[in-house]
């Protein structure tokens, strides 16, 4: 027993040390966000200082920050809702009425996700430019919806497959039409699955930084683009950058922690269980 406790103690120390080292950059960022600009660039850095929330106030007061945050929220949620709306019928069909081609179809959808975005950057960019979709929220919503559609279809498919068929069967016997069957039986039954699919999709949209950097400039720019603007030398305000970054990642970090299990499933397309 004695030895077991000692082993556990060592494991605890090693485990926490590893976790803290990995987490450290985030910790340091949060710490910096409570410093003044002068303290932020000071070497040697202060570990103990009088925290200030001045940076957060500045960030909140700058109207543009709110504008970018709002873009992130609107685009992520709209694209997620749209993707789920489009995916539900397809996943329903594939989960409950699989045909000979269902497997091929699923794999084809998956394969579109394998395509590097840079391979279609040029035509999409030109198309957006010519249709006036560049730097608009709806343009970004369209891109994000389509970008996540394969993952959403795939995840909903695996969740729908777990719904007992007898229940849907019974509903059908009672005269439920297909539409009622989906909305009144399937959707409520697989609500946890749909919720985690939505979470994953929101996370992916929120952190997406290829299309947002290339297709938006100011009007529709989400937080990823806004934060990137700090890379310019004149934007070297570390404390404010840290505060803006902390606010930008906080909600998504919580979402991510909530949905870590489903994340594995969604990102590996069920290849690892």
């Amino acid at each position, binding site marked *: 027993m004695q030895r077991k406790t000692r082993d556990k103690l060592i494991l605890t120390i090693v*485990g926490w040390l590893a*976790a*803290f080292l*990995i*987490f450290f*950059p*985030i910790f340091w*960022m949060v710490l910096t966000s409570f410093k003044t600009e002068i303290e932020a660039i000071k*070497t*040697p850095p202060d570990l103990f200082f009088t925290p200030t929330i001045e940076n957060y106030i500045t960030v909140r007061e700058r109207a543009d920050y709110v504008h970018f945050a709002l873009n992130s929220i609107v685009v992520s949620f709209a694209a997620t809702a749209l993707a789920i709306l*489009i995916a539900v*019928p397809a996943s329903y*069909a*594939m989960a*409950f009425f699989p*045909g000979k081609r269902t*497997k091929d*179809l699923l*794999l084809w959808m998956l394969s*579109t996700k*394998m*395509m*590097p975005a*840079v*391979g*279609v*950057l*040029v*035509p*999409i960019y030109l198309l957006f430019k010519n249709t006036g979709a560049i730097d608009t929220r709806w343009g970004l919503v369209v891109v994000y919806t389509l970008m996540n*559609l394969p993952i959403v*279809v795939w995840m909903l498919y695996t969740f729908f497959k777990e719904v007992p*068929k007898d229940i849907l069967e019974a509903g059908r*016997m009672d005269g439920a039409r*297909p539409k009622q069957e989906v909305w009144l039986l399937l959707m409520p039954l697989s609500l946890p699955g749909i919720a985690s699919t939505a979470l994953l999709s929101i*996370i992916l949209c929120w*952190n997406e*930084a*290829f299309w947002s950097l290339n297709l938006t400039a100011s009007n529709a720019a989400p937080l*990823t*683009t806004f*934060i*990137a603007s700090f*890379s310019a030398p004149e934007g070297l305000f570390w404390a404010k*950058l*840290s505060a803006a*970054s902390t606010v*930008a*990642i906080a909600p*998504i*970090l919580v*979402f*991510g*922690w909530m949905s870590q299990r489903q*994340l594995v499933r969604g990102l*590996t397309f*069920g*290849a*690892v*269980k």
Partner: protein
Amino acid sequence: MASSTTVTAPAAAPAGGRSRRSVNTLPLLAPSVGLLFLWMIVPLAMTLWFSFQYYNLLNPMLSGFAGLDNYRYLLTDPSLWTAMLNTLYLVFWVLVITVGLGTLLAVLFDQEFWGRGVARLLAIAPFFVMPTVSALIWKNMLMHPVNGLFAFVARSLGFPPVDFFGNLPLTSVIIIVAWQWLPFALLILLTAIQSLDNEQKEAARMDGAGPFAMFFFIILPHLARAISVVIMIETIFLLSVFAEILVTTSGGPGLASTNLAFLVYQRALLEFDVGMASAGGMIAVVLANIVAAFLVRAIAKNVAE
């Protein structure tokens, strides 16, 4: 898992056409399939078409069919080869770091210890940080040659501080990207380890297997499949690392940290050479497809089960 039996087992359903009606799934599938087709295949065809054209937005006079000229020019341009090598170098080292450390960490976090749940949450956090934020934290607060934390640590240990982005641009990008993807590898490998049968572990222990034998003969073989999935998925994403480069080095100094994705971006959006950029895009697609072919095969096996 039993999905494949639904259609072929009508005997289980009560008689009467109602419950086993044949459903026309086409209208249900059409929106998803149609949109994905429009989203990927059509632009891809356009990229392919552009790549055979002279097409520069700054020079409308120059147009028409280019044949293989764009490819010929690109393939003889040393920047393509540099970018290609950088791309592969980045993918390779990030994979080595994330899979290597990820495996060790997964074994560690599989052990029972106090506060394991919270420690695990901390360890997976970087994955949820947007790329532009993580690039800027590392670039400024950690790797800055004067005010950064690493410079301070180096100085207090008596070493000269390293100018990360000046002298080791690609290595710096690799460190940042590896930090972002380590939690992904950890999460997936941990999931895989936890699916390992406890009885199997117990049996091995009874037979006198030490921790090392356990790792090499029980855990690692069990992880083989998960590791291959991690490698393939990461490769797909790592082939087009973009934001981290844009924010930290902008591909420089010179071409030192330019990868294929960044090269295409430069050609298309900074130099407006649509034809050339498209040819670069096609090369990226071919590279990704080689990897994707293996990945799809691995997953197909799973779907078939």
